[in-house]
């Protein structure tokens, strides 16, 4: 998983982090629990990191996952913001 761009998902509580982890793993989407970077203010000390390339798979799960913020994670950032294909494609 090194070398790939990542997204950071922030949550309100460890309960929601673990709920999101369970849901993502159940969907076969890779994720990892990481300490929330100190420079980002957050309710919860743990966050989930997900691959940037999986961003489109996250969108339909937004309501269930209930992340409070979605941010680029790490030093590698995509140069253009990616958009997901629309449903009627």
């Amino acid at each position, binding site marked *: 998983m090194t070398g790939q761009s990542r997204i950071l998902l922030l949550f*309100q*509580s*460890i*309960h*929601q982090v*673990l*709920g999101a982890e*369970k849901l993502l793993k159940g969907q076969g989407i890779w994720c990892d*629990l990481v*300490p929330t970077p100190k420079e980002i*203010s957050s*309710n*919860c*000390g*743990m966050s989930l990191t997900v691959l940037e390339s999986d961003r489109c798979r996250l969108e339909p799960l937004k309501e269930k996952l209930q992340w409070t913020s979605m941010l680029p994670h790490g030093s590698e950032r995509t140069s253009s913001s990616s958009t997901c294909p629309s449903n009627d494609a």
Partner: protein
Amino acid sequence: MIYLDQAASSFPKPESVVRAVTNCLLQVGANPGRSAHRLSLQAARLVFEARESLAQLFGVSESRRILFTSGATEALNLALLGLLQPGDHAVVSSMEHNAVMRPLRYLQESRQVAVTTVQTDTSGRIDPLDLRAALTSSTKLVVVQHASNVAGVLQPLADIKRAIGDIVLLVDAAQSAGAVPIQFDREGIDLLVFSGHKTLLGPQGTGGLILRDGISPEPLIRGGTGSRSESDQQPDFLPDRYESGTPNTPGIAGLGAAAEFILKQSIETIAQKLKAQAGQMLQGLQAIPKVRVVGPGLSDLVLPVVSFVVEGMAPSEVGRLLDQRYQILVRAGLHCAPAAHTTLGTFPQGTVRFSAGFFNSSAEIEEAISALREIVLGSS
């Protein structure tokens, strides 16, 4: 030894429950969710998974609405002290346990909360229409047990909810959770209290309160939650708002395993076994001369919790002989429910209570009935 005091605490526990507690103590050990290291996360997952299993068992769509407490008593205190304000009116049945009555008496005496106790019939069954008749414009809460710890009667929750309409309903399911199907979301219950160590087959020191969306009692306890740590204000989101301090992680691990055990057995299978035990117990006791059983008749008795008095013998004497001569363990007295005994006509002397559970066999119940028969006939 024959253990027929399951209503006080279930024993033995499923092997998987013991293993879960031991595994937590031996392998996991850390404080759930407080630290970022793998053991803390593993502990947090144990707590999370227990919540999820209970959510599945109780039909709760959002597991964060299940709050862990030290038991049903703490959950009842949280609900009652957290919801009732000066000038409020609460309606309660005449069969409730002291874990309901003592906080209500305190609120009555110290917080200007009015309490109306609605009489049930002499078998302990609530009439929903009597509850409705007791409602006033300041009624904020109706509190009823799901099942009696003295006489095994099961209250008609759906009819009660229908009768009281919009009034908030608090159900004390300490004696029924895990033994009788409960679907929290679907049945329109607003608050449900459960005990971990009785019919749920989990360890002592566990239990909880389930809150419907929109019901927000004041927390009983405030403190560290491992969230929003830069603030000294209690968080307002669930479950953190109501779970300060380090939880009983080994206990909750066991409780999660217990919920999984019940889900695997299927609660309908368990309920069926308990109903059969109830019938066997009631009919066996009724056939012994000088034994007077109180509570509901065969058609209404759903749980194997049966109380009786023996003519000419104090309940404690009967209990003592059963223990000493036959190693049969039961509970004699008032069972922390003076209100129930008053309703059933057995106050202040109390009763002997036989209470069976999933791990009792019909042979054990038969043996207990024979032993009681010997004691009763031997005393004349």
